[in-house]
């Protein structure tokens, strides 16, 4: 049994064991152990296969296919039952169409199709499994700490921790399977498992809202799965192949764009682009580890991963233009909506949507430069966003709220947590961190390929982005006075993964020239048969590394000045006489008035309901135009 198979199957075994173990202490130890094993195995498998890549098939694939078919039927049956029982009939309809379709296909047509390589490991796979394995195991470790206090703070939720951990590891297994598989039916199976895991995790708290949101996620993603199935069937029937690698080698023409379009729609649902975004926004009711793992770092990346794989068919084709348009609309509108949000997790959710939109744009523009930017964005976004979600989770634990308006006391509550979230936010948009580099590359890639409107969209989106992140940062550096405060332990299981991820954010930024040289360029060379290109020059890279070093060194150098500062500290200027506590002043007739400082939310301009309505409308029209273009292309 080789490394890759173990990597896929081990989390499955771990999941089963964790589900059965009910004792808290034993289970926590097991989770930490399993997480460590997963991380180590990821590293081993990467080292083993990175240099030359790998591609093979299993001996008894017939058996595997039969097992998968049975499991698919069981899952579909369960989903149909769930839909009917909870009166969410649409999901039952989707599942009822999807399952027979793929079953018919597998039982009749699939027999004649040779699968040469059902597992393929290339450089892109390496990037994905590192993200899944390293970030995933850190998040599982964090969950141990998180769950220690979660049910104490929320006594109204039923405790199902074994279930939660089991689903997390099941999800990891499915994600590994998804990115390692080359057989489209296997990818599809893993895709559906991740959908199901997402449904289970969102519904964890069993509140009315959680139930509705979990069904919304299930419905939209099963609908996407239906599109995926249609795509597979069309490809299998017409092009007689089940392999992703074979598919992407076919020359683009109007006929193949039809199944590609279906696959892209599936990817857009998984990555929650407009008009399919509501499920991701609703998923924020889930406990924070699932938001970090599924809904920012990994599962939603599966959608953009698929689009990256399909990029040879995008670019200047009609499908490429449509997907670019959808990505652009999502990026622009979600960046603007994030300005009006004050719930920390909602801001992170809209930011995730926007950045996924950007990755979608890069992948669908399809040039070597834009794909370079796309993969870099995948890496840096996963790393920064999971750090942010974990930090917000711990902040919620410490101060009892995840509203940005309440985070001005954070510096007094926990200096370390403040530092971690500052690194996370900086990593999302500031020079010289990774996301900025990726956006830079993206802008250059778009203008090089004459995508004028997309460049303008990025310019506006970047402006909106800097506004909402900086105002959040502003709250964190406010250092407001702390009133009565109940101290909560910052568990080591919470802090260690956050700390590790903060290090990864900084290190990955320093290491990005190496990532480019040893991972991205060889991958792009394989896919496009082009020579290496330089997107960001060496002198620029040196200046950026200098900036990063200075960002670390300068604040540290201020510490001696801070410690022996002999400055006279005076009260804040309030235009009325400050009462002395820096929070209130003597107003008219000597009355004491409180000062409250709130951020701007610009709800008149960027209200989510209004913008989402227009965004959904425009993107639905765009997708409709795509269908018309496809039919037109076929008719020619």
């Amino acid at each position, binding site marked *: 049994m080789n490394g890759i198979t173990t990597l896929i199957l081990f989390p499955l075994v771990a999941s089963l064991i964790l589900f059965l173990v009910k004792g808290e202490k034993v289970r926590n130890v097991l989770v930490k152990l399993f997480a460590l094993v997963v991380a180590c195995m990821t590293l081993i498998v990467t080292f083993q296969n990175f240099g030359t890549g790998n591609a093979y098939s299993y001996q008894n694939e017939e058996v595997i296919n039969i097992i998968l078919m049975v499991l698919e039927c069981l899952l579909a049956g369960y989903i149909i039952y769930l839909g009917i029982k909870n009166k969410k009939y649409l999901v039952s309809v989707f599942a009822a169409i999807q399952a027979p379709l793929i079953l018919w296909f597998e039982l009749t047509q699939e027999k004649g199709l040779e699968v040469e390589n059902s597992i393929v490991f290339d450089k892109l796979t390496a990037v994905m499994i590192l993200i899944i394995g390293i970030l995933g195991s850190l998040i599982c470790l964090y969950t141990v700490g998180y769950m220690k206090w979660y049910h104490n703070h929320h006594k109204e939720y039923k405790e199902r921790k074994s279930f939660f951990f089991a689903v997390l590891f099941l999800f990891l297994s499915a994600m590994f399977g998804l990115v390692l598989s080359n057989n489209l039916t296997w990818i599809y199976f893993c895709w559906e498992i991740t959908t199901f895991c997402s449904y289970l995790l969102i519904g964890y708290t069993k509140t009315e809202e959680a139930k509705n949101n979990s069904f919304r996620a299930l419905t939209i993603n099963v609908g996407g799965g239906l599109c995926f199935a249609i795509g597979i069937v069309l490809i299998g029937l017409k092009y007689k192949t089940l392999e992703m690698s074979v598919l992407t080698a076919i020359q683009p023409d109007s006929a193949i764009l039809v199944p590609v379009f279906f696959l892209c729609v599936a990817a857009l649902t998984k990555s929650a682009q407009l008009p399919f975004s509501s499920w991701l926004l609703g998923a924020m009711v889930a406990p924070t580890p699932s938001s970090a793992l599924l809904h920012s770092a990994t599962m939603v990346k599966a959608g953009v991963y698929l689009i990256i794989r399909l990029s040879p068919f995008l670019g200047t084709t009609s499908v490429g233009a449509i997907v670019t348009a959808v990505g652009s609309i999502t990026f622009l509108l979600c960046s603007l909506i994030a300005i009006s949000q004050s719930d920390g997790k909602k801001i992170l959710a809209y930011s995730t949507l926007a950045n996924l939109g950007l990755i979608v744009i890069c992948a669908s523009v399809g040039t070597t430069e834009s794909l370079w930017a796309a993969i870099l964005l995948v890496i840096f976004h996963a790393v920064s966003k999971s750090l942010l979600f974990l930090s917000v989770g711990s902040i919620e634990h410490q101060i009892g709220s995840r509203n940005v308006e309440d985070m001005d006391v954070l510096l007094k509550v926990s200096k370390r947590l403040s530092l971690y979230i500052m690194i996370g936010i900086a990593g999302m948009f500031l020079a010289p961190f990774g996301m900025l580099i990726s956006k830079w590359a993206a802008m250059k890639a778009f203008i090089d390929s004459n995508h004028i409107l997309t460049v303008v969209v990025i310019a*506006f989106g970047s402006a909106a982005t*800097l506004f909402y992140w900086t105002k959040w940062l502003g709250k964190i550096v406010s250092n*407001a006075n702390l009133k009565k405060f109940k101290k909560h332990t910052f568990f080591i299981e919470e802090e260690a993964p956050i700390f590790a991820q903060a290090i990864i954010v900084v290190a990955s930024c320093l290491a990005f020239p190496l990532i480019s040289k040893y991972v991205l360029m060889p991958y792009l060379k394989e896919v496009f048969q082009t020579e290496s290109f330089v997107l960001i020059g060496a002198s620029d890279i040196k200046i*950026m590394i200098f900036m990063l070093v200075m960002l670390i060194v300068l604040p540290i150098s201020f510490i001696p000045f801070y410690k022996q*500062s002999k*400055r*006279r500290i*005076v009260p804040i200027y309030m235009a009325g006489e400050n009462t002395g506590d820096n929070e209130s002043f003597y107003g008219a007739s000597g009355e004491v008035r409180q000062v409250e400082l709130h951020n701007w939310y610009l709800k008149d301009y960027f209200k989510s309901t209004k913008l989402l309505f227009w965004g959904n409308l425009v993107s639905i029209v765009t997708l409709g135009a795509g269908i018309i273009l496809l039919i037109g292309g076929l008719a020619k």
Partner: protein
Amino acid sequence: MLILMVIGIIILAPLVGGLLTGIDRVITARMQGRQGPPVLQPFYDVIKLLQKESIAVNLTHRFYIYLSLFFVVLTTVVMLSGGDILLAIFALTLGSIFFVLGGYSSHSPFSHVGAERELMQMMAYEPMVLIAAIGLYYVQGSFFIKNIIGTNTPAIIYLPGIFIGLIYILTFKLRKSPFDFSMGHHGHQEVVQGITTEYSGKDLAIIEITHWYEVVIALTLVFVFVASKSTLTVVLAFVVCALAYFLEIVIDNAFARMKWQFALKSAWLITAVLGIVNLLILSFFK
């Protein structure tokens, strides 16, 4: 050699910026029928500020100003040595964000309002600045300023729309009416001193010096559009910079401060229209 150039830029740029600020004050005064201060007044002001006691509201808010100065200086060095204009813009954004964070970190009401307004100003002009850099790359084939001004044709020939947009947002960058709602340079401010309310003495002096660098950076952006290989265009570029600066002074004196709603809407509208039209027309010729 490189070290000498860097040191030269670091020392000379604020002197030029300060001088320009002084000239601004004299011309403004004459427009208002006053005598005006001596041209070197900004330098006298900074020297006076450095001698004053620096009081603070907490121990940390001044360090953001030092960080801001560092990155603004870095931006100036990158720009004036012909470096990558997009990297310079990102470094400038970093410096400006530290300035904004300084305003937040004092937790003081007028400072807080000023910081939000400053951030709003940044959001208003950022798209135009990015589009200007992209436009320059599109026509001149490089992001590096030394290459942009080393071509045969000045960029403004191909980018008239974007140039006009740049002049529009220059008012934001030079902190002039009608778009100076974050801090009061001239003492006519409804949020007291806005983002600089809680700074005094040495820190206020550093803020002043940072703004001198920013004047040079803003005018360099204008310069880059007009200069090219021939010396005539370089001379012309200096003239255009002077005219643009004079235009900003006129606008400053002619208009009252507008609200942030107008600032944001007008800046974004102008950016979108001029940016898209200019670039689309260019893309047809490519």
